């Protein structure tokens, strides 16, 4: 409609808009208001009895009557309006197909509780490898944590001992020396420098707050770390020797 005209809009015959309203929900086959309505995947509305009869008419050429796209009687979507029919649609033959329900997708990390990792982390890493297990078991999660999931791949490329030292390396407050079994610590590791530049992650910070350097707790932790390190080294040696 042109704007700015003072004329009243042309009068429509009463009921014509009503007709348009109902025509939107007419079955494309019987031209009546669709009953037991189904909509094809191409978006066309039919009565289920009409569509099913059409599909029976041409069993080897099942196409949408409107757009001729391929159509599958089991993949049409039933439409349930409010009120509607109270009778069981299955009493009609053939039964109208059920709607397809799928559960909403849940992201795999949605329910992951990061805070509980100091306690339960060992269980998470347990399936990955020995070195990861002992590293997390003492609650010293380092900022390289996400790389843990790459371990199976990394292990295929680098020697195991290298990976072990690398994981302990990113731990704040931990000395690098003293570890006899870290021969690859200075090896070519493209991921390491960048990862350290990021600084300590949330866990590193928590860790340094609870155990100030030089405190008794830090000493204990260092002691524990050394024990686990030696266990790890022993396991690696054992792995190599067996």
């Amino acid at each position, binding site marked *: 409609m042109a704007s700015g005209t003072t004329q009243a809009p042309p009068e429509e015959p009463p009921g014509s808009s009503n007709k348009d309203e109902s025509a939107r929900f007419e079955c*494309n*086959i*019987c*031209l*009546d208001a669709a009953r037991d309505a189904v909509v094809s995947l191409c978006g*066309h509305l039919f009565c289920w009895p*009409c569509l099913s*009869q*059409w599909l029976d*008419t041409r069993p080897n050429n099942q*196409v*949408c*009557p*409107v757009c*001729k796209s391929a159509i599958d009687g089991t993949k049409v979507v039933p439409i349930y309006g409010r009120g509607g029919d109270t009778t069981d649609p299955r009493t009609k033959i053939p039964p109208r197909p059920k709607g397809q329900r799928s559960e909403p997708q849940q992201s795999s990390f949605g329910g992951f509780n990061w805070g509980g990792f100091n306690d339960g982390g060992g269980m998470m890493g347990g399936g990955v490898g020995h070195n990861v297990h002992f590293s997390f078991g003492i609650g010293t999660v380092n900022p390289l944590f996400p790389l843990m999931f790459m371990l199976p791949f990394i292990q295929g490329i680098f020697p195991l001992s290298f990976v072990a030292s690398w994981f302990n390396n990113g731990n704040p407050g931990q000395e690098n020396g003293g570890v006899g079994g870290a021969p690859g610590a200075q090896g070519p590791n493209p991921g390491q420098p960048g990862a350290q530049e990021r600084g300590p992650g949330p866990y590193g910070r928590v860790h340094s707050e609870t155990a100030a350097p030089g405190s008794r707790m830090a000493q204990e932790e260092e002691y524990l770390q050394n024990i686990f390190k030696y266990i790890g080294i022993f396991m690696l040696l054992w792995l190599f020797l067996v």
Partner: protein
Amino acid sequence: MSDAAARRLMKELNQLKTENPAGLLIDNTITSHDLKQWKIGVVGAEGTLYAGEVFTLQFTFGPQYPFNSPEVIFVGDTIPAHPHIYSNGHICLSILSDDWTPALSVQSVCLSILSMLSSSKEKKHPIDDAIYVRTCNKNPSKTRWWFHDDSV
């Protein structure tokens, strides 16, 4: 004629009468008592070979309509000379047999035929006209049509 077919034909007839599409002449003799056979006039479109000429189409609906296509032929004294229309009135048009769908209607068939007439480049019957007219069944749906020419 089944109930559903009659219902749908009644709807189509009402729609044709209210819309009164250009180029179609709705026969007033079509009544709700006998919906089985309709005659509809087709007026050749302006600017085409058939401009101003009036032909008559005869629709015959089976009990399975709209799931089966209606039988549509030209009847009367003037059968249009067209590469896809035989001199006995039979029409070689895919939507009248293989490509029929129940979403088509009398109106859409008429418009398809009108469009087919409009795109014709010469007024002549198909080359096998003489043989076909002599040997064919009275009902064109008994013919195995071979659709090969989409240009006209």
